[in-house]
């Protein structure tokens, strides 16, 4: 909201210094007023200074057409001392004797233009006759500004019109302060802060005694939606342009002048915060208004020509037939005041705030009126003051006479008195504030105090402060005005035991995996949690029931009702799209290989059949209705493809990244085929990460189709992810004694179909070893080697000469040792033979040609 300091100074009953901020020591300078406002909770966004130091009143003494330009005139202008020749192109030049705003040579216009003598088609012009827009005192740029004939030539314009010289302060008003949406409310705060007397707006011409009460003027049908409606019937109105001071004032607070009637209502709106509306009474069917709710579908055309179909939740001001205004939001075109209007019906009302807000939102019509009504205006004193002020100004400016009125009332709000213990103020803030000071502040703000009980003051807040409802609201007022500069930084003693809240294990795990992935030279990326629908659908499956934790069906996608753009149409069900976006972003800008990771949540509605963990506690009822938000930890590596078909190098690297991150938290993943192949990974280059019989993640090379769709076919991409909800709780390490006796090894070379993975071979050997237990006390077993710490090492996966096409040779080293003794060659050889035989028996079931090389 824009505040005119000139306007404020009238309400504060003393001048304010509105020149640019040189007078920092003057408490009444605009800068210091602004600082005050910020400290009062009315945060200042900026200050703008206006002045027109050299613009004077000029008298038109002679007008002759320009000899060489049909649209220009040569004007002989009297500036109070001498006659000056000026060329002017305006079509609304007044006749001889008329007054205009004149910028002589040497004057500087607000846009920075300094006027100098210049020639216009051969005729010298010594200055310029100005328009409102050129002077930045109005929005009428159609022609020059014509001044009243009675003004003295040579007078400085800014001395004649208050508000030309001004400082305008922009404040942001929080929703709890409807009173500060008018200059009066701000002035009330300032008066108390600065120690001035608040001067209420003048009402020089009160509603005349001859005006009669006319109950039929207003029919209040919807009293619950409009507890009070003041209607005034005015006659003999002469609609025209407003006087310059009024136009300047509206311009300073950002409004456009319309006509004197509308301008008066806007002026009073910005003065008191009370919106009002003037109808052309002549055009109201029955010359009266009905305050009622609309019937569904009822049409109205607003002032600005928008046709609306109303809802039965809308409040309207209708005439005998049809809605003439969307109450509190905007007037209707049909009864708009315009040229030729002579009879007015002026509305000054109090509407129920919430309903106004609903209507304004429904049609996206945010107006100065609705903005104030939905924050709640005064229903008593200030409403009456605003009405009287408007009637008085209308009479002064448009000649309108009030002939009748109607004060229609329903059930008005009854502000409840608040009990305040003055000691409570200091107890809550943690600083001492004297009772006198508290009383001074509250009374200064219009609160009526009954201090007969010293520990329980009875405080009646004024009706223009609907935000004051509890004692803490009063404490806030005291705090605002007393200031917080003296507030000490002091801890209160805590008499009770604070309990230590349990930590969320998933959050901890997420942090640990974040550290784990980061340790692998990967860079953490944070992507927006939204994705495009088509990107999300890439990961949907129809598997029912789901075969792995990352399976989801299309209906499980979580969608905002009001996304900002199509590409953010749903919440991500998967981390890959966000990481792919980042990869594409990078690959489009540089040629470096890159590795990124992200640990974050994905969003899915549970299937009704899901056996999700039943929520507990006081929030359970809500929690049952929420989507699930499981965490994923994903890594991606990308580089320009080398030309030959990729050997899965990046897919391997990512698999290793994930395994390493798990190892860092004490979990050891086995690699084997995923429970279900992922369609978005290369069918031949993907692997599951398993812990026990649970798949906890998947990794592989991105499917070529996916790369093609993203225009990334020139690149090789490895991607993998872990599903945190599938991970077991982090184990507490159980110490195992260090092996003190040497072990021994046996090498084994197998010839196998290439589709038999090393993981399958390892599994076969391990299970064969487990099955070949010996009856002795401390038999040799397959056991960890010293380095690497693994029972079976994969030495080489060989394809090429000596191995048939489609097959590979796996060279393995098996480590054997006993617990408390050295092993003998013979017993190890016996065990090894059994292990190999047992494993081959399993492997030949899937590959009959499997053999030892």
């Amino acid at each position, binding site marked *: 909201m824009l505040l005119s300091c000139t306007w404020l100074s009238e309400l504060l009953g003393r001048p304010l210094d509105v020149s640019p901020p040189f007078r920092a020591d003057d408490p009444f300078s605009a800068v210091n007023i602004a600082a005050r406002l910020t400290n009062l909770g009315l945060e200042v966004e900026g200050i703008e200074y206006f002045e027109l130091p050299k613009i004077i009143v000029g008298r038109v003494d002679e007008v002759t057409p320009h000899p060489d330009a049909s649209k220009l005139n040569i004007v002989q202008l009297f500036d109070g001392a001498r006659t000056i020749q000026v060329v002017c192109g305006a079509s609304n030049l007044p006749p001889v004797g008329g007054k205009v705003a004149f910028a002589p040579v040497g004057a500087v216009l607000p846009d920075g233009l300094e006027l100098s003598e210049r020639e216009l088609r051969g005729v010298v012009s010594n200055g310029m006759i100005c328009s409102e827009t050129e002077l930045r005192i109005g929005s009428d740029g159609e022609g020059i500004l014509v001044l009243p004939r009675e003004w003295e030539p040579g007078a400085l314009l800014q001395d004649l019109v208050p508000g030309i010289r001004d400082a305008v302060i922009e404040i942001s008003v929080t929703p709890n302060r409807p009173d500060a949406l008018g200059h009066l409310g701000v002035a009330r705060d300032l008066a108390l802060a600065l120690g001035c007397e608040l001067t209420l707006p003048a009402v020089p011409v009160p509603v005349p005694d001859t005006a009669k009460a006319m109950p039929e003027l207003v029919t209040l049908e919807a009293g619950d939606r409009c507890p009070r409606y003041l209607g005034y019937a005015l006659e003999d109105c002469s609609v025209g342009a407003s006087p310059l001071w009024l136009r300047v004032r509206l311009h300073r607070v950002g409004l456009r002048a319309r006509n004197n009637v509308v301008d008066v209502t806007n002026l009073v709106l910005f003065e008191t915060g009370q919106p009002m509306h003037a109808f052309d009474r002549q055009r109201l069917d029955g010359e009266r208004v009905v305050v009622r709710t609309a019937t569904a579908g009822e049409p109205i055309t607003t002032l600005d020509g928008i046709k609306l179909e109303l809802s039965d939740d809308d409040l309207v001001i209708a005439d005998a037939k049809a809605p003439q205004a969307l109450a509190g939001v905007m007037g209707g075109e049909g009864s708009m005041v315009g040229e030729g209007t002579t009879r007015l019906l002026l509305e000054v009302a109090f509407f129920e705030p919430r309903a106004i807000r609903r209507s304004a939102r429904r049609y996206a019509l945010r107006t100065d009126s609705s903005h104030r009504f939905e924050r709640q205006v005064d229903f008593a004193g200030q409403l009456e003051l605003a009405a009287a002020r408007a009637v008085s100004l209308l009479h002064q400016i448009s000649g309108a006479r009030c002939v009748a009125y109607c004060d229609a009332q329903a059930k008005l709000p009854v502000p409840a008195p608040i009990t305040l213990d003055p000691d409570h103020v200091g107890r809550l803030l943690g600083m001492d504030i004297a009772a006198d000071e508290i009383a001074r502040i509250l009374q200064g703000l219009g609160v009526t105090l009954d201090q007969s009980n010293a520990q329980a003051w009875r405080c009646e807040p004024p009706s223009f402060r609907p935000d004051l409802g509890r004692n803490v609201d009063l404490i806030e007022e005291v705090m605002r005005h007393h200031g917080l500069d003296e507030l000490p930084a002091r801890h209160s003693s805590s008499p009770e035991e604070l309990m230590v809240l349990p930590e969320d294990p998933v959050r901890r795990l997420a942090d640990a995996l974040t550290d784990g992935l980061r340790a692998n030279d990967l860079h953490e990326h944070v992507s927006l*949690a939204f994705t495009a629908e088509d990107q999300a659908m890439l990961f949907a499956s129809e598997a029912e029931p789901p075969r792995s934790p990352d399976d989801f069906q299309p209906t499980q996608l979580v969608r905002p009702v009001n996304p900002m753009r199509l590409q953010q149409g749903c919440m991500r069900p998967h981390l890959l799209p966000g990481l792919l976006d980042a990869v594409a972003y990078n690959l489009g800008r540089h040629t470096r290989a890159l590795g990124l990771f992200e640990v974050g949540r994905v969003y899915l509605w549970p299937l009704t059949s899901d056996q999700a963990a039943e929520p507990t506690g006081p929030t359970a009822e809500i929690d049952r209705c929420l*989507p699930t938000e499981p965490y994923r930890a994903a890594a991606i590596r990308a580089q320009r493809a080398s030309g030959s078909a990729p050997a899965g190098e990046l897919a391997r690297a990512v698999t290793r990244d994930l395994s390493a991150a798990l190892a860092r938290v004490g979990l050891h993943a086995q690699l084997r085929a995923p429970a279900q192949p992922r369609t978005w990974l290369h069918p031949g280059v993907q692997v599951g990460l398993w812990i026990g019989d649970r798949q906890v993640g998947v990794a592989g090379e991105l499917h070529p189709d996916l790369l093609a769709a993203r225009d990334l076919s020139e690149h090789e991409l490895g991607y993998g992810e872990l599903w945190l909800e599938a991970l077991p709780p982090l184990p507490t390490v159980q110490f195992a004694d260090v092996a003190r006796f040497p072990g021994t090894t046996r090498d084994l070379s197998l010839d196998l179909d290439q589709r038999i993975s090393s993981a399958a071979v390892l599994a076969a050997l391990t299970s064969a070893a487990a099955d070949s237990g010996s009856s002795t006390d401390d038999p040799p077993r397959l056991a960890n080697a010293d380095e690497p710490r693994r029972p079976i090492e994969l030495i080489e996966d060989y394809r090429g000469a000596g191995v048939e096409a489609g097959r590979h040779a796996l060279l393995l080293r098996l480590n054997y040792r006993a617990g408390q003794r050295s092993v003998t060659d013979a017993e190890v050889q016996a065990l090894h033979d059994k292990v190999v035989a047992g494993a081959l028996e399993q492997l030949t079931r899937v590959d009959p040609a499997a053999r030892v090389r």
Partner: protein
Amino acid sequence: MAADATASPQEQLDAALLAFESALPQVSSETQLYDLQVQFLGKNGAVTKLRSLMGKVPPAQRKELGQAFNRVKQAIDEGLAGRKLALAQAARELDLSRHVDLTFVPDPPRPGTLHPITQTRRELEQVFRRLGFDVVDGPHVEAELYSFDKLNIQPDHPARDMQDTFFIARPEHDPREGAPSLVLRPHTSPVQARTMLRYGAPVRIIAPGTTFRRDDDPTHSPMFHQIEGLYVDRNVTMADLKATLYRFVGAFFGEGLAVRFRPSYFPFVEPGAEFDMQCAFCFDGQVSHGCGLCKQSGWIELGGSGMVHPAVLEQCGIDPTVYTGWAFGFGIDRMAMLRHGISHLRHNFEGDLRVLEQFTSP
């Protein structure tokens, strides 16, 4: 060297010694030295073999010959030992004469990095844990009830406009009549409501996390990160809030930075205030002189705060006549940008390697 069979044993010994002494200087390695030792003193060595001559000399000369033999052997042993030492010294000299340029090493592998938002969030958590706060988070898709109503933000109230909120549609497969209306939480405040409902008072937490608002411009992202603090107990005051913020600012940005409040409005607190800290980036230990980051004001706006509104305490099952509390909140993203001098919000979420790799951390 063939032994001259006609020479006397003494002569043969002398010849052997002479041969050894002429061979010794040619030895340039331990292996050669060993070979030389074998050649003279080995089982079939030239000197060893001369022992057999003992039997061929008259007994009277045996003693003399034995002594001569020992002298020769000793001389060879000494020669060998001396040569061995010399060789070792030469080897050491040679080793010490090596010069390697250790200023020329391959570039170290580039370390992985944590996102500046993660780093900042963790450091904030650390500081507040030290100050005695528990860390709590909650769902991102949240009931309107916890996001607004329980926080004293009533339906159809203009305070709802203070944040433009994403609403979430119920799924087709489970429309569930009468289910609560859901939003993407526009602040982490629902975590406060949930924590109070679940644990009651006294309670002291911070709630860092991801939040969403329908804003997208150079200074707003539809997804961002917030941290909020809440302390509810008997006799909790605004002065206590100031003390906590002061200690936080001291621990996070540096000792001695002042904190100030400016009255403001947030529906869930009353009284409410914005809090600023003295600008840490132009602070000389006493005064902040003004810089680009604080727009020459010497103060940096951090966030909102205030005393928990009694209506919020009531809504969350806490008796406001017994307990009071305070709450504060601010943006993590902006804090991260301030600390690291990140020039533009978009760097936070684009995933540019050249941006991310800069944020190394311990």
